[in-house]
């Protein structure tokens, strides 16, 4: 892309007004998980390329990034299934880098559920207690409790093969939380579910996390899922972390071009266009819904930037309308308008001359991502 203004498109709708409740009441100062200088290579592939991260006690933490960005590998290193090529893993302050999975106080919810097919649902759920030699009565009580928590009471005698995908997912959850781990690792746990079930499970998982007070580390490539569920999010790209922030920070003030493009939709202004429109050089992003459309020549308040252009394309999306406005010399901006009473719909016509303006406060200065990955085309990053 040679134009000095780049339009990154991923998912149209994001909901930055998400639940971000902060860490639970019993949170302590020691991070639940601490990763220091983590590297992992598979032959020539650098799956994880220098990750430093602190995950707080009791938080719902998401790892977000396109497929192949190293999220699963980091999760597997925390669980102990992979050992890092370099770097240390600390759980609750203790270095566990050299400990096997069964000696770590974390549990995993696998993407393919990994339920034992030769055991009943109850047999699966009680597995962790059984290997720890918890007595029978206690086991039975806690299996009932765990199955109740995931709303599968009475399913104990079934076989995993007799359950639907969503139900297997819940069994897998029950099997993990019955051990009351300090940390629960979830690798795209909702990936195999259909959209409706997915939405339900998102809400349930979030509630469960709040009630249990367990630290959740949640891997997803779905930015909307990450924004709605998380206290904080780490955005992964090519084995590195681009930014760690709350959903609001991530959306409102993305740190890099990659984050601005991957999380929500962004208009990028750089080089000559930035100088002409904004009066200063650099690399900037502005979200489509921050831009206002007016008649040309409308007076602009102090503290706003403005530019004139022509509406090139209109897309009506029900509650909103998207307009692509050409500012000349190949610069185009995407504008998102609420379809509310006060909006002058006459302006949203193809070929109309309009004036765009947006608050300077919503102009975010970015750091360019990936000088080392010129092949990456951010319009092709994976999203739901």
């Amino acid at each position, binding site marked *: 892309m040679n134009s000095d203004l780049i339009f990154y498109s991923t998912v149209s709708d994001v909901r930055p007004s998400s639940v971000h409740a902060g860490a639970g009441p019993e949170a302590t100062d020691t991070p639940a998980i601490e990763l220091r200088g983590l590297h992992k290579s598979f032959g020539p592939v650098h799956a994880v390329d220098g990750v430093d991260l602190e995950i707080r006690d009791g938080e719902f933490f998401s790892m977000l990034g396109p497929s192949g960005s190293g999220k699963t590998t980091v999760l597997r290193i925390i*669980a*102990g*299934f992979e050992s890092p090529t370099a770097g240390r893993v600390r759980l609750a302050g203790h270095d566990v880098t050299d400990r*096997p*999975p*069964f000696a770590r106080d*974390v*549990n*995993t919810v*696998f993407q*393919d559920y*990994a*339920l*034992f*097919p*030769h055991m009943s649902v109850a047999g699966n759920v009680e*597995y*962790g207690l*059984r*290997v*720890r030699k918890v007595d029978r009565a206690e086991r039975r009580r806690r299996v009932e409790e765990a199955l109740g928590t995931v709303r599968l009471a009475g399913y104990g005698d079934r076989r995993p093969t007799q359950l639907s995908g969503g139900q297997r997912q819940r069994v897998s959850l029950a*099997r*993990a939380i019955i*051990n009351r781990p300090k940390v629960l690792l979830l690798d795209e746990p909702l990936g195999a579910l259909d959209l409706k079930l997915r939405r339900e499970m998102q809400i349930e998982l979030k509630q469960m996390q709040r009630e249990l007070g367990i630290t959740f580390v949640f891997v997803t490539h779905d930015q909307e899922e990450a924004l709605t569920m998380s206290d904080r999010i780490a955005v992964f790209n090519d084995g590195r972390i681009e930014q760690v922030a709350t959903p609001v920070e991530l959306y409102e003030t993305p740190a890099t071009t990659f984050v601005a493009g991957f999380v929500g939709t962004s208009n990028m202004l750089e080089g000559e266009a930035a100088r002409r429109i904004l009066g200063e050089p650099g690399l900037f992003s502005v979200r489509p819904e921050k831009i206002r459309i007016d008649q040309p020549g409308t007076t602009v308040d102090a503290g706003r930037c403005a530019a004139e252009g022509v509406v090139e394309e209109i897309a009506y999306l029900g509650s909103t309308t998207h307009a692509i406005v050409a500012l000349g010399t190949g610069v185009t901006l995407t504008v998102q308008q609420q379809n509310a009473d006060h909006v002058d719909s006459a302006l949203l016509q193809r070929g109309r001359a309009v004036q765009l303006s947006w608050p300077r406060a919503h102009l975010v200065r970015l750091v360019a991502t990936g000088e080392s990955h010129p092949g990456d085309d951010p319009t092709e990053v994976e999203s739901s």
Partner: protein
Amino acid sequence: MSVAAALHRRPRLRLGLLLAPPMLWLGVAYLAALAALLVTAFWTANSFTGEVERTWSLENFRELFGIGVYKTVTLRTIGIAALVTVVDAAIAFPIALYMAKVASPRAQRLLVVAVLMPLWASYLVKAYAWRGMLAEGGLIDWIGKPFHASSPGFGVTATILTLAYLWLPYMILPVYAGLERLPTSLLEASSDLGAGPATTLRRVVVPMAMPAVVAGAIFTFSLSLGDYIAVTIVGGANQMLGTVVYANVGAAGNLPFAAAVAMVPVVIMLLFLAAVRRTGALESL
């Protein structure tokens, strides 16, 4: 209307024509032979002329169950077949586990070839090789010397060792295929839930590999039940059901009695399969 078009519209007929020759072969060569065997067992051989008399009688079975030595031979044969199966399972399991879950893909392919290789050599050569090794002053004596151990000599133990060697690939391959299908994520899940390697082996790997072990056991058990050569070569004076059959077909010329003896492994195998079926292992073969 062409024949091809007619066949195209009648898939069942097409399937029938396709399967008829092999089914015919299976029916004639396999089931008919078995039926003939069953029928022959109820005839008798004239003890002077040696000719088969086609009159129905239970004489052969009366003799088989009435004379102590046949009971001993039957029990010995079952015991040998069972021990061969146990020995093979015990040796094959770790090898198959290593092949399926530890070895690199390249090493995996090499090991499969290595396991198959002995099958390319003649049965007799292998049996005589064991005779040489087991003989007094043979390889096993020589290896055992520093440990004050000696070869078991020719007998039941030698027969078990030799048969276990001969049938080992038939146990390794199904168990390897079964473990290969076992998802690695199940082993990780077990470890994740706090189980050490031994517990994971006992609670996840072994139960899930059981159908494959049973499949292997069907091979090793039935092949051992019918064997008569290995025991002749390394078994000393011991007889198995196979040798009794062989003696009656050959030297004694009593085909009906041989048929009656040959029914014993068939019945044992049917009982074995019925027992296995009840464990549910056959469904996953």
